[in-house]
C-alpha cells in the first residue's frame, strides 16, 4: 500500500489544478455574460472595439 503515499498527493494535486483553473476563470470575469459568450462563438466577426485584433468597421 506504499503506492498510496504517491497516489493520494497526485490525485489531490490534480484536483487542485482544476480548482486553480476554476478560480482563474472567476477572476477573469468569464461568468459575467454566459449567455452572450455562448452566442458569440456563432459570430464571424469580432466586436468592433478592436478587442480581438483588427475588426473591420462593418456596415449594417
Amino acid at each position: 500500500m506504499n503506492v498510496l503515499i504517491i497516489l493520494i498527493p497526485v490525485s489531490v494535486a490534480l484536483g487542485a489544478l482544476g480548482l486553480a483553473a476554476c478560480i482563474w476563470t472567476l477572476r477573469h470575469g468569464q461568468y459575467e455574460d454566459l449567455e452572450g459568450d455562448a452566442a458569440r462563438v456563432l459570430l464571424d466577426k469580432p466586436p468592433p472595439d478592436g478587442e480581438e485584433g483588427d475588426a473591420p468597421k462593418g456596415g449594417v
Partner: protein
Amino acid sequence: MTAACPACVVAPDAPRLAAEAAGEVVHLSLPGIHCAACIAGVEQVLGALPSVRAARVNLGRRRARVVLAPGAELAPALSALEAAGYDARELDEAALEPGDPAARMILARIAVAGFAMMNVMALSVAVWSGADDATRALFHWAAAAIALPALAFAAVPFFTSAWSALRARRLNMDVPIALAIALAGASSLIETIRDAGADTWFDAALSLTFFLLAGRYLDQRARATARSAAAELTALELPRATRLDDDRPVRVAVAELMPGDRIALAAGARAPVDGIAEGPARLDRSALTGEADPARIAPGDLVCAGEAVLDAPLILRATARAEDSTLRRLAALVEIAETGRHRYQGWADWAARLYAPLVHGLSAVAFLAWWAATGSVGTAIAVATAVLIITCPCALGLAVPAVTASMTGRLFRAGVLLKSATALERLAEVDTILLDKTGTLTSGRLTTPDLDPAAASVALALARGSDHPVSRAAAAALAGHAPAPLTALREVPSEGMHGLWDGAPVFLGRGPQGTELRLPDRTLPLDMREELRPGAVEAVAALTAQGHVIHLVTGDHARRAAALAARLGLEEVHAGVAPEQKAALVAELSRQGARVLMVGDGINDAAALATAHASLAPATALDAARVAADGVLLAPDLRALPETLATARCAARRIRQNLAIAAAYNLVAIPVALAGLAGPLAAAIAMSTSSVSVVLNAVRR
C-alpha cells in the same frame, strides 16, 4: 480599429484601453436583444458610427457598454439603433452598480467546497469498502487535512450568519447548519486522532456546505438581479435637461435644476420639473391623468413634471426643484403605500420558521435519549450529529432558490423584469386583473382607418389647416402622405374644415355618425381610434382563458373606454376614474377577496399599483409607476403578460413540489438517524439524491 501598431496585436487590450481613456462611457438598455445575430447587429450598427469608439453587448443583462468619441453625443447612436430595429434607452451610469463581488466570493467558496468534497469522497470510498488499520488512519488524516481548511474557508457565511443570529438571541436556518458543520468537523477530527475505527463525517460536512452554498448562490443571484432591475429602472429615468444660461443651451443633470432656471423642452420631451410655460403649447397629460386628448395651455400656465410637450418646442421657467416636483411627491406617496406589501411572507420564510426549532428539538432529544440509554456521551454526540446532518436543509435550502432563479431567468428572457423577491409568489395567486387604458393597452397615439392615397392626401391637407385636437391627431397619423393641393380652406367652428380640391368641395369634420371625410365622389368615416399596443387583443384573450377576471380602468371619458373595451371584448369598464379612486377600487376588490394584479403606466396608476396584491408596469411607464410596480414588462408586446402569470403559477407549483420532496426525504431519513443507524454513507446518499432531485425539478421545462 486598425492593427497598424504592432503593440496592439501583442497586447489586445491596448486599443480598448486607449479608446476608453479618450471617451465617455455610457450604458444602454437593450430589452429586445436575444440572440447572436442581435449581438452582431447592435455592435455593427454602433461600430459603424464615427461617434462611437467601442461597443460591447452583454446579452445576459440585455445591455451594451458604449465608449463615445470625445465630445460626441449619444443621440445619433440611439437613432441608428432604432432605425436598425433595436429598442435602446440610455441608462444613468450613477444608478448602476458595478459587478457583484459577493456573488463571485460565493462562487469561489463553492469551487473550494466542491474540490474538497470530491477528493474527500474518493478517500471515503476506500474507508467504506473496508480499509483498516494504518491505511484507514492514513485516509482519515488525508481527509482531515483537506476538509478542515476547506471548511474553514467555504463555510464562513454560515458561521457568521449563525453567530449574528445567536447574538441577537434568535434562531435562523443557519444555526443548525453551522452547528452540524462544526460538530461533524470536530467529532471527526477527534475520531481521527483516537483512531478508534468509528465513523468520520468529513465528506458529509463538505457536501452539506457545497449544496447549501449552491442554494445560497442562486438566492444571492436572484436578489442581485432584482436589485439591479430596480437600479436599472432608476437609471432609465431621464437624467438630464437642457438649461438656458443667457440663451445658451447647457446640458445639466435634472437634480441641478433650481427654481427660476429656464429649461428648453424639445417637441416630445417631458418636463423634468414643475414650471411655468413661457409660450403657448399643447401638452400630453395622459401620464398624470390618463386622458388621451392633448391639453392646450397659454403662456403663464403651470406645467407639471412628467407632462410631455407635443409638436412644438417650449421654454419652461422652473418653479420647483426635481425632488419637490409633483412627480416626486407622488413617488413618495407610493413608497409609503408600498411598505404595507413588505409584510408578505414567502414560502422560504415559512419553511425556515418551521424548520429550525424542529431540527434542534430532534437532535437534542436524540442526544438526551441516547445518553440516558447508553450512558456514553460519545455515542450520544455521534447520533445527534447524524440527526443534524441528515435533517440539514440541503434540499430545503435549494428548493425555493432553485425554482425562483430558473423562473425569473425564464421571465427575463421573455422580457419581464421582476424587482421584488416575493413577486413571483404573489403573481401566482392573482385572480383579478385591472388594466389601465392609455399607455398600457394603447400606445397613447391615435390612428386613422386605412385610406387610399388620394383620400389620405386630401384628409392630411384639410387636417393641417385646423388646430382642433382631432385634426392635429389625424395630421400626425397621416404624416407619411403628401398633402393634396387645396384651395379656399376655411374652418367652421364646431363643424370642421371645408376646402376645394380641383374645384370640387371637400370636407373633414363632424358628420351624422362621428368624424367623416367628404370627397367629391364619396363620404368616408374617419373614426380616430386609439392605437392598441401589439399583442393586446391576444393578451386579453389569453388572460380570460386562464380564468382571470379583467377590468378596464381609466381616467379617460366613458365613450372612448367603451369603444376600446368593445374591441378587446372586455365587460368590466370603469371610466373617468381619478387616481385615488383607482386605488380605492383595488382596495374594494381586495376586500371582496380578490387577489388583484394592477397593470398601469401613469402617475395616476401609481397608488393603485402600490395597493394591489401584485403589479406590473410597461417599460415606457413613468418613473413613479415603475417604482411602485413589482415588475416591468420590457418588451412592448403585451403577450408577455399572460406568459408571466403562467410562469408564476408554474413556479409556485414547483416550489410546493420541491418542499414536498424535501419533506419526504426527511420523513424517511429522520427515524433512521434517530435510531442511530445512519452512517456517513447513508448521509452522503440521502443528501445528494434529495438535492439533485429538487434542482432537477426546478430546471425541467
